């Protein structure tokens, strides 16, 4: 086992760790948004809304269709988009999801409210499957689509423009200066070789000995420059923050502060907390429990919509189909359990830890197991701390 350790850890390159942590944090905020929906519905109804991942999926479709209606259809030739486009997509996805959440609650869960808990749970799974497979009929025949990244005002085909680059530890300056000197040598070798090539008739494959010599020299200089650059950059720690994802992080933070405020200090929030603590006495205090449940679904679903819009827009190459919500849904559910289901700060913590865990697995060189870590965490938390990190173990007072 000890002999194996260095081999297992061989992939750990400390210089790439900050980048992975930052990426993990960004993904984690999306999980946190979705986990909030699970945890709020659980808090109020003690129901695990398994269809939440599908609400997320529908939110991504809403964002996609809005981007199309703004002209960013496949193969468009538009310039990059605007803040306005992003905000329209964000608000649009949130509103669509809020409505869908309310409809699901009204049609599927409310009739089951007074039945055994297991009935609602199975209904939730049914709604989830219905949307995954039924959605294929209605949603663009289930053909995977992606949101044109150009819709974002931050988009640029040049990564140095589209990214904010943070330097934690710069390259070695001496070596870098040396490499700079070498680049003039390369330029010279190149011009020499190209001049000779012209002289010899321009055919690269039939060079005279002199031409061959100059060509080999040019190639050698090039290789030397590369390795000098590598030496200079060895030990440098750089973090790339795509600007779109910074926007995403900012929006998530604003949404979370708003949510905390809403739940802690407004009358709707107070009613929500009262209903989650005691359904019956809340209603006997004059709180309209149905209205509170509807509101909770609308709120939780709109957060999933926001998460979906961001996941689909700012992660390049994301394809949307009707199963788009399955994996994020499961991961966010694990995040909610990890933080302590029913606990709002717990969902945020759980989401961020999930994102970090996933990217640490990638960092350690086991990228193939990225999606499996969620389940490992779920099993571990259920075994060792079933109440979750911030959930309190219930002690009955006798």
């Amino acid at each position: 086992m000890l002999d194996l350790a260095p081999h297992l850890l061989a992939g750990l390159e400390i210089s790439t760790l900050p980048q992975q942590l930052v990426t993990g944090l960004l993904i984690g905020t999306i999980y946190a948004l979705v986990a909030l929906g699970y945890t709020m519905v659980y808090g109020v109804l003690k129901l695990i809304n398994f269809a939440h991942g599908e609400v997320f999926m529908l939110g991504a479709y809403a964002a996609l269709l809005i981007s199309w209606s703004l002209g960013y259809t496949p193969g468009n030739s538009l310039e990059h988009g605007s803040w306005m486009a992003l905000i329209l997509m964000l608000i649009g996805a949130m509103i669509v999801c809020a409505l869908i959440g309310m409809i699901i609650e009204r049609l599927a869960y409310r009739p089951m409210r007074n039945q055994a808990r297991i009935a609602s749970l199975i209904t939730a799974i049914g709604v989830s499957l219905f949307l995954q497979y039924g959605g294929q009929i209605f949603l663009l025949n289930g053909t995977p689509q992606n949101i044109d990244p150009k819709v974002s005002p931050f988009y640029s085909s040049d990564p140095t423009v589209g990214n904010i680059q943070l330097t934690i530890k710069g390259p070695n300056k001496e070596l870098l200066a040396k490499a700079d000197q070498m680049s003039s040598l390369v330029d010279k070798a190149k011009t020499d070789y190209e001049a000779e090539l012209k002289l010899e008739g321009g055919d690269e494959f039939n060079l005279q000995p002199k031409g061959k010599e100059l060509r080999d020299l040019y190639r050698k200089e090039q290789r030397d420059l590369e390795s000098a650059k590598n030496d200079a950059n060895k030990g440098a720690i750089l973090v790339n923050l795509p600007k779109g994802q910074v926007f995403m992080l900012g929006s998530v933070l604003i949404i979370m502060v708003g949510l905390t405020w809403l739940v802690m200090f407004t009358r709707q929030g107070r009613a929500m907390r009262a209903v989650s603590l005691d359904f019956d006495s809340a209603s006997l205090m004059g709180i309209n429990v149905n209205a509170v449940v509807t509101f909770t679904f609308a709120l939780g679903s709109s957060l999933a919509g926001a998460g979906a819009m961001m996941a689909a827009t700012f992660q390049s190459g994301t394809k949307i189909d009707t199963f788009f919500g399955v994996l994020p849904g499961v991961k966010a559910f694990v995040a909610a359990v990890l933080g302590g289901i029913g606990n709002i700060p717990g969902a945020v913590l759980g989401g961020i830890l999930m994102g970090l865990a996933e990217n640490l697995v990638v960092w350690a060189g086991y990228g193939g197991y990225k999606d499996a870590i969620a389940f490992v965490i779920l099993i571990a938390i259920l075994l060792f701390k079933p109440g979750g990190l911030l959930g309190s173990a219930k002690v009955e007072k006798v």
Partner: protein
Amino acid sequence: MNLLKLDKATIKFGGLIAVNEVSFEINKGDLFGLIGPNGAGKTTCFNLITGVYKPTSGQISFDGRDITGTPANKIANLGIARTFQNIRLFKSMSVLENVVTAGYLRHKTSMASAFFYLPSAIKENEQLKEEAMKLLEVVDLAHVADVRSCDLAYGMQRRLEIARAMATQPQLLLLDEPAAGMNPQEKEELNAMVKKIRDHHNMTVLLIEHDMRFVMSLCEKIFVLDHGEEICFGPPEKVRNDPKVIAAYLGEAV
């Protein structure tokens, strides 16, 4: 003018008739006691009045309005509030928050103005807290306003339930065994408190209680239930000497 009227209210659970054709009237300003042995249907009566259960037959009216089958939260809106036999506070909220939450109905702030913390929202929040503090003073809990409600002593939790019910500004206050688990001194204080609530806060009180001395010294009218049926109704002196009541509580002579 009666405030609450039960007219042949009946509820059956399967074959069991929990409350059978119970009729009584409560006038404004009454201190009305509902007593009976365990399982007589007293709490079920409360559940009928507050809309937790819907009567199988019969009618319940409040303030001249038929409330049979009206949802619980709407009945609370109309002005009936209650406490619970087994304490059901919002446990993880502070004492003050419990009372403020019950004042929910009277919040007028729209969500938008609360969200953006507009001056009207701030003002209302302050006002609600002030009103809640006043109620806490009535039940002598002002000094523990910031304590989590589940950390209070039992007797204090019972008093907090009363304050929470009062925060909805009801006309009729239903107290389900308010004195349960209290020592004699606490009971005496509670007795004075209930009278004060009736006199100074214009509330009519209907209470369930097992402690006979407490009920007899507090209530002006007493209604006795046994096996879901009325067996006696009248002032304390009448109830105390009624042979049926004595039989129900002590068993009949063989």
